Every structure is written in C-alpha cells, then in structure tokens.
C-alpha cells in the first residue's frame, strides 16, 4: 500500500494504527463512559498497535482482555451500553465476529427501535479485514455488506489515518451501534493527522480527487487502488473523479449521484464479494438515481467468486488492483487496454502490504 500522497503542511504524520490508538485515547479522555475490550487488547502486540499503552493510561477497569467467547461478550457489551457505558469491542478478524452476529443483528441493531425508543445501544465493534501472507479463507473476509444490510446499524470503513481517528471518534459518540471495519493493510499506511474536530460527519463520502470523465467510488483499500488508477488514467488524458465512500451505512447517495451526473460514467470498487455487495449497491443507486446521466453501462470491481485462497500464487490473482480499475474505465470509454496491464513489476510481492511485512499473522 502506498502512503497517502498528500503529506504536507504543519500536521503530524501517523500510521493508520497509531491514528486509531490516538482516536481511542482521545475518546476515552473526553468521556469516562468509554471502555475498550477485546481479545488481546492489553497484550504486548495491542491489536496491531492500535491499543498499545491504553491500559497504562486508562487502567484495567477501562481497557481489558476478554475470554474467547465472542457471542456472550457482544451481548455483554450491549448490556454495558444499555447501562451507561460506551464500549468499544475489537475483533482481530471479521471472520471471528461471525460468532456474534446474533447479538449484533437481533439485539444491538434493534433494541432502540423495538423497545419504542426506551433504550439505546451506543457501542462500537471494530472488525479487522485480514489479507495477504496466506491469511486464507477464514482470516480475510470482508463482510461489511452484511452489516450494511441491517437497519439499526451504522458501518464505517476509514482509509486514511485522519479518517480512522475521525470516524472512530464519531462512532464512539454515536448513540447507535457502529461497525468499524479496518483493513489490516491500512494500519501501516502513513498520513496527515490533526487532532481537531472531525472534518466530515459519519455518513458523508469524501471526493478525494475531482474529475470529469468518470466517477470511481470505492471502499477501504480499493480507494488507494482507485487513486493510483486515476493517476495512471490522468497520464492518458482521462480525468477520473475518486470518491472515498467512508461509510457503507448510511450511504452518501447525494455525493455519489452528483458526481455521476457530472461525469456520466461510473465504476464502483469494493474489497468484498460481488453478489449483494457494496459495489452492486452503488451501481444500483446510480442506475436508479442517475439513469439519464449514464453514458455507458456502469461497472463493479469486486473480489472474484471464490473463497480466499491461501497460496501466494492464487491470492496474487484474487485481489483486484489499480490495473483492474484502469481496465474498467478504459473499456467503458471505448479505449484499448494494454495487454500487459496486469503484469507485476519486478520485486513487488502482492501478498504483502509493504516490503517490510513478513507476517506471520
């Protein structure tokens, strides 16, 4: 993953993981009701560094480990939220959180509604998307579409350090349950960091780059691929607008449609599977809301229709990258595509977020 390009100005520069830790510490300093719990939260690795030092600063009462009981612990967090706290619950992988969806979907998402507004469930559930270094079929799933499908939940997917912190703060302040989807590969990406008021509210997308020929709206790491693609397209004289959706629920339909009405072409790119995924949802929104503006059929870039393979030889062809975005746009515009576009530069290893990465987890 390339670091955020625009690291300029007076602000600090942090990694994604550091930004999440800072955001958590800020939230805990402002509000004594905030606690953070999860497998390994206070351990020496501190959830990829995102919780390091928190127990030292806030004590074992507010920062603690849990038994390997995802289902009960989620219900316990719901109970804490109902009774005056604002828990942040962490999962090292989305895949592990599957044990707790009954509590998330039947309980956390619905208590506010089904008890007629008598109770609220302010809690944040962090889930990390694994990828690379042989994470394989059960340590790499991206299932944010599931949570986006459920009324009563909010779902955020920050990309840049600043947004990781802003969206974490906004999620903790939110009175409803928020699913906070992190991508392991974004933990190491460095970027500008400001400790002020969050810029955009939860639910708003960010136009990262303005363009006039095509709109590319993306989630999570696909935002970085989209930016890279836009750069390459620009070199060929194609002006792409890149939107970081930031939130999968609620979706910022307004920003999306305004952009497509301007460009007339649309590509959605997501880190999840295709069928009933976020890319399809965006395409559907655009088709329903900007039909007359569309000059060509929209496209969706998603994972191929298989579980994640472990072998690096297969994961290399499994994950879509910037060339896939470039190809989609060029085809849409009726332009030729370089047959070598997918070839991998010498020395680049596609199963690693950066050259220094050596697993094992």
């Amino acid at each position, binding site marked *: 993953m390339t670091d955020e390009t625009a690291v300029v100005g007076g602000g600090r520069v942090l990694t994604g993981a550091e930004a999440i830790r800072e955001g958590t510490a800020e939230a805990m300093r402002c509000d004594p009701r905030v606690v953070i719990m999860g497998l390994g939260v206070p351990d020496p690795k501190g959830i990829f560094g995102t919780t390091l030092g928190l127990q030292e600063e806030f004590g074992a009462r507010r920062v603690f480990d849990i038994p390997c009981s995802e289902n009960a612990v989620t*219900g316990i967090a719901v*109970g804490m*939220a*109902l009774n005056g706290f604002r828990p942040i619950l962490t999962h090292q992988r989305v895949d592990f959180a599957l044990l707790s969806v009954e*509590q998330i979907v039947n309980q956390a998402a619905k208590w*506010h509604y089904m*008890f007629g507004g008598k*109770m609220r469930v302010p809690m944040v559930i962090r889930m990390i998307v694994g990828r690379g270094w042989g994470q394989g079929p059960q340590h790499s799933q991206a299932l944010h579409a599931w949570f986006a499908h459920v009324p009563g939940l909010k779902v955020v997917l920050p990309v840049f350090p600043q947004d990781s912190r802003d969206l974490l703060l906004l999620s903790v302040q939110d009175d409803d349950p928020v699913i906070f989807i992190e991508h392991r590969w974004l933990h190491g990406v460095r970027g500008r960091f400001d400790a002020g008021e969050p810029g955009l509210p939860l639910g708003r997308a960010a136009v990262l780059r303005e363009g006039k020929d095509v709109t590319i709206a993306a989630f999570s790491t696909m935002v970085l691929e989209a930016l890279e693609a836009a750069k390459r397209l620009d070199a060929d004289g194609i002006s792409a607008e890149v939107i970081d959706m930031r939130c999968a629920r609620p979706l910022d339909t307004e920003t999306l449609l305004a952009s497509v009405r301007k460009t007339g072409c649309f590509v959605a790119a997501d880190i999840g599977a295709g069928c009933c995924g976020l890319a399809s949802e965006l395409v559907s929104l655009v088709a329903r809301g900007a039909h007359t503006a569309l000059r060509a059929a929209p496209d969706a870039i998603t994972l191929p229709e298989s579980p994640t393979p472990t072998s690096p030889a297969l994961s290399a062809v499994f994950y879509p990258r910037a060339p896939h975005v470039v190809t989609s746009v060029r085809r849409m515009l009726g332009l030729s595509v370089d047959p070598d576009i997918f070839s991998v530069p010498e020395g680049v290893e596609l199963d690693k977020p950066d050259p220094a990465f050596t697993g094992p987890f």
Partner: protein
Amino acid sequence: MDPRVNIFRTLLRIRLVEEAVAEHYTRWKMRCPVHLSIGQEAAAVGVCSMLRREDRVMSGHRSHAHYLAKGGDLRRMLLEIHGKSSGCSGGRGGSMHLVDLDAGFHGAVPIVGSTIPIAVGLAFADKLAGRDNVTAVFFGEGATEEGVFCESLNFAALHGLRVLFVCENNLYSVYSPMEVRQPVERSITGLASAHGVGASQADGNDVDIVRGVAEKALRGVAVSPAPKLLLLDTYRWREHCGHGFDNHIGYRTEEEYLAWRERDPVRMLRERLVAEGLLTKGVEDALSSEIGCEIAEAFEEAEGASFPRAEALFENVT
C-alpha cells in the same frame, strides 16, 4: 398487609392477568405470539420479591410473570400486547418485547438465551460504576443448551458480577422433552459449579421455598459480589405459545399435567396461608375483585387505545 399475603396477592394477580390474556385472546385483538407463564408464577414472584427496586431483571419469550413480579406496569403491558402506541415499547415489540425501566425490568426478547449475556453486561456495568445493583435473568432449561449460557457463566464468574441466573426447568422446550435435548446425567447446577458459580435447585412451584433459596443466594451476592444460579423445577400449564391447552396433541400426557396442577403455586400458598390463619376467603375475594377490576380496566384501555400512526414506522431508527 402481611408480607406473605402480599406475595399471595402478586401470585394471584399474575395468574389472573394471564388467564385474562388467554380469555381475551380469541377476540383476536392481541395480534402477536403470547407465551403464558401460568403454573410457573412462583419462580417469578419468589425471586423478584427478594429483589430491591433498584435491582434489575431481564427475561425471554415467556416474560409476563417476570415483568409483573418486578413491578412492571400492567396497563402498559396490555397496551403493548395490543400493539398500541402507548404500550411499554410503543407497540413496536408486543408480548415478546416488554420493558419497564422504572420498575427495573430491563427488557425481554424471544431469541432463546440472548438476554443472558446482556444481563451479565448490565451487571458488569454496575460493577464498573461501583454500584451494588443485582441483575436477575430468567430463562428456561432449553436456554441452557445454547452455548452463550456457559460463556455468560464464565464471564460473570470471572469478573465477580452480581448476577442471579434463574433457570425455570419446565421440562419442555416447545414440544421437545428433555430426553431429546439433554443427557440424563446432565446437571445445570453442575455446569454452574464447574464455573465456580454457587448453585441450588429447588421446588419452583413453592413460592416460600423459592424465596428461601433466592434470599440465601442474594445474601451471598451482597457479601461478596459473585454470580449465583437457581434451578427451579416447575411446569407450564398451557400451550407453549398461545392461549389454549395442548396436552391432547401428544407431546406430553394429561396425567403429567394433572400431577403438576396439583402443585399449583397459587393454591399451595393459599392453603398454607389459610392454615396459618393469615388469609380468609373474604380477604381473597376482596383481592380477586380488586385485581379483577384493575385487569378489566386495563383491557378496556388497551382495546380502546390508538394504534401508532404510519409515520411512526421510522421513529427510533438510526
């Protein structure tokens, strides 16, 4: 009123309320599933009578008795079951989603076992906040088959939480007898003990006995914060879900039912109080008619009250 006569009054009131629900059900105005507790009232009343107002209670699909025993508002419960906007959950929940925070009844949901960890979470919050409230969570023996039950025991024991796990063993999960669900050697109190959670089993139809074991457990909890479990043997008289009886459909015998009816929690306490000279026919009649009026009024209000407006569909959605 003598405290035990008051207990009798609570038992009787719950019985009469639920019988009224059953009786009114075929007017088809209560358009939601109802799981009646008739026959199981002593567990609810025995345990809740030992709790303080600030203590908390949660329950599952069969929650009317727990709600009322903890002091939940009868009117709002019936309004809720009738789907009315002034119901305790604004008509959004129905019989399976009761709540009365003022009374310390923190909610009930019909996913088997799912309030168990939520109740542990309430208690955990109380511990972290330095409060001494006790949280009692009611569930059936079927719920102990869900893994979340053991996960919750483990967490509550680990953190020394003031949780009273109250399991009402009524021998059935819907129409499924114990034989097809739990090995004969299985011990629910043993599961608690294996987590270091003090547990006792008792006659769940004898409210005096329930009060005794609840008091003992709560005394323990007061001294050193730790969960306890009560396993209360009891029996549901009516069908699993709905207003009628279902002994004839073939999953249990009329004899079994009749044997348990002999052990009617209301009658057992009545006879004891009469024998002890604490209750007379006259007093009971007075109680019955007073309760009867209350119930009649509550039904009248519930049937007449207004439904939520269509726009209310989107209230309290995030």
